[in-house]
């Protein structure tokens, strides 16, 4: 046993898969502990808020201390963010009328653009075709003139005695605030989804639920597969024929179609996570059954089984001590694959709207479903579906990698 484990952890493929999977699992376990909260709470009032850190303007003005920094390029960045694209186009328009060649004016280079403007703008020239246009250029010049000046902002407070606003303090526009001093900050590493829910928190909780679904589905499928496989393989005869008949039946009917039919026939209000997981498990035992049966048939006629019989061991004991250990590695491998396919099946079902009911939990499939229904891909809200796709891919990649690693160890034909 110890030797086997040592061998398993010497396989590069298994270890890589194991590390990825453990990292995902740890995230799903630890994040809710260090940052508790309801993953489905709608915190944002508009949908698809961009990822980032949000601070309340009020709070940041009211913080006790402010800081000033000498940051290179700070002014340019500020101007960049204030000078709208429309203004830039108008500046260009003016400069072209003034007679500059087109290639000399680059609206992306804020600094050069402003220099050109100040060098060439002359209110006397009246290059605009209408009065309104000339007035607009004059206003633009005023605005641009003030762009480097910083104004102080007055922070007022209502005096409860007099009922009048009293000046509390002055804040310069160029002041900085430490985020930890601000009372209301919200960090949204992956923004919010269409309902205004924190996508990251939702994703973490969905990983947990999906793994749970995979685990339940995998366990159900493996247990059924193991039991039927053992019975069919060991007993043979009529029992084998009956079990093989059903397993053939399940093989010909595509599993996913069956899954859709079963899921459809259960009312949405009844479709909890466990129900969906069990339904998935009930439709995916066939291959485990077939392979366990094949292994048991070859084991059944081995001499050690005969010898165990001759030692008077009972059938259950025979199966537990002489058959199960030999197929254990194989069953573990099948189980790992079943978890992975369970997670994928749930994702598929949920995207068809047949997943668990949507009100109390998030699953990876449901998140994909919501993102699709609320057209996240059209609104450019990549954060609502890319991370989910990545997680699904990583989970199934890591599980398959672990399976391949194990296969190489336990299947002597693949050993190098």
């Amino acid at each position, binding site marked *: 046993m110890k030797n086997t484990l040592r061998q398993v952890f010497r396989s590069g493929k298994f270890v890589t898969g194991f590390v990825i999977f453990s990292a995902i699992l740890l995230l799903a376990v630890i994040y809710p502990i260090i940052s508790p909260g309801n993953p489905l709470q709608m915190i944002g009032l508009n949908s698809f808020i961009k990822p980032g850190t949000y601070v309340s303007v009020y709070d940041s003005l009211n913080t006790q201390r402010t800081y000033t920094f000498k940051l290179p390029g700070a002014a340019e960045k500020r101007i960049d963010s204030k000078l709208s694209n429309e203004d830039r186009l108008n500046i260009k328009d003016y400069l072209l009328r003034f007679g500059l060649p087109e290639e000399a004016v680059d609206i992306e280079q804020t600094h050069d653009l402003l220099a050109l403007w100040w060098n060439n703008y002359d209110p006397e020239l009246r290059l605009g075709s209408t009065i309104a246009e000339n007035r607009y250029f004059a206003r633009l010049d005023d605005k641009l003139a003030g762009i480097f000046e910083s104004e102080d902002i007055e922070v007022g407070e209502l005096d409860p005695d007099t009922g009048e606003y009293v000046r509390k303090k002055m804040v310069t526009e160029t002041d900085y605030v430490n985020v930890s001093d601000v009372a209301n900050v919200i960090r949204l590493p992956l923004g919010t989804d269409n309902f205004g829910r924190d996508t990251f928190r939702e994703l973490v909780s969905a990983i947990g639920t999906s793994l749970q679904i995979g685990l339940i589905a995998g366990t159900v499928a493996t247990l059924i597969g193991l039991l039927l496989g053992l019975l069919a393989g060991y007993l043979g005869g009529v029992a084998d024929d009956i079990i093989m008949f059903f397993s053939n039946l399940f093989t010909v009917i595509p599993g996913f179609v069956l899954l859709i039919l079963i899921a459809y026939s259960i009312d949405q209000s009844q479709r909890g996570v466990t129900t969906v997981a069990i339904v998935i498990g009930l439709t995916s035992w066939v291959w485990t059954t077939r392979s366990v049966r094949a292994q048991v048939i070859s084991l059944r006629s081995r001499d050690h089984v*005969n010898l165990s019989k001759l030692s008077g061991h009972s059938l259950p004991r025979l199966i537990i001590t002489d058959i199960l250990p030999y197929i254990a590695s194989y069953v573990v491998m099948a189980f790992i694959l079943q978890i992975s396919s369970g997670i994928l099946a749930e994702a598929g079902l949920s995207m068809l709207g047949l997943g668990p009911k949507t009100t109390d939990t998030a699953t990876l499939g449901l998140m994909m479903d919501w993102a699709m229904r609320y057209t996240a891909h059209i609104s450019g809200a990549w954060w609502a579906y890319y991370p989910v796709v990545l997680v699904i891919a990583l989970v199934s990649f890591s599980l398959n990698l672990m399976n391949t690693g194990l296969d190489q160890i336990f299947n002597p034909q693949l050993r190098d």
Partner: protein
Amino acid sequence: MSNEKKELCLSGTGVTKVFGFGERKTVAVDHVDFSFYSGELISIVGESGSGKTTLVKMLLGLISVTEGDIFFMGQKRDIRSHRKKKEYWKGIQAIFQDPFSSYNIFKKIDAVLLDCIHMRGGRGLSKEKKIEMMTEACRFVNLKYEEMTNKYPFELSGGQMQRLMIARIFLLKPKILLADEPTSMIDACSRATILDMLMELRKETGMMIIFITHDIGLAYYVSDSVYIMERGKIVEFGSANEVILNPKAEYTKRLLTDVPKIHEPWEFSKRKRPMTQEERFSSPQPINIEV
């Protein structure tokens, strides 16, 4: 060696085994009659596909008999329930061909021997007594219990594994032992050891041994009576000397001429000249003594 004095131990009439149905029907063992007397050493000789292993499995009660009856100690064999089977297996045991697949690789060696003690009703014995019994069994097959305990089967060599199988039989002391090619997977040098131990065991417990082999020379060497099987049928049987030195059946004759020999000429031998009587019985003798 007259059979009249001896007690009938295992016999069968019209024993048949058919695998499959209809078109794919194969008759592995075809209406075989035999009577084995207690204390005898019988060889069943057959090439691959002769049905000898199927016959062994039927005798052991591991597979069902399609047709015919098997009698154990004069009574018709009844192994319909697990308890009756367990009782039957106290009287009949086996050693299989491949020692490497005869062991459960997940179990320690002690477990194999303990099972035998338990089967003989020794479950209630003290631990010391059990260890004493296991030590004795190991000593019988020239193994040291101290070196065997707490080991897994794969840590032993093929010869050691097969000796341990004999230790198992030593603990069980059954009336009948079926040895299915016990030496074919073992080197020639260890073969003599295994055979010696089987003979010793027979001398000590008086058990009947049924030796299954494809090697007609080995059958001649070890057994009192020989049964020759061809395609599911017993084509010839009798005492070893009768069958081997004076074969009647065509098949036995062919088998005997096809086996390469040392003292007698063989068809495609480099040495065409038959050995003289003198040479034959004086060997192994040095041919050139000058040094």
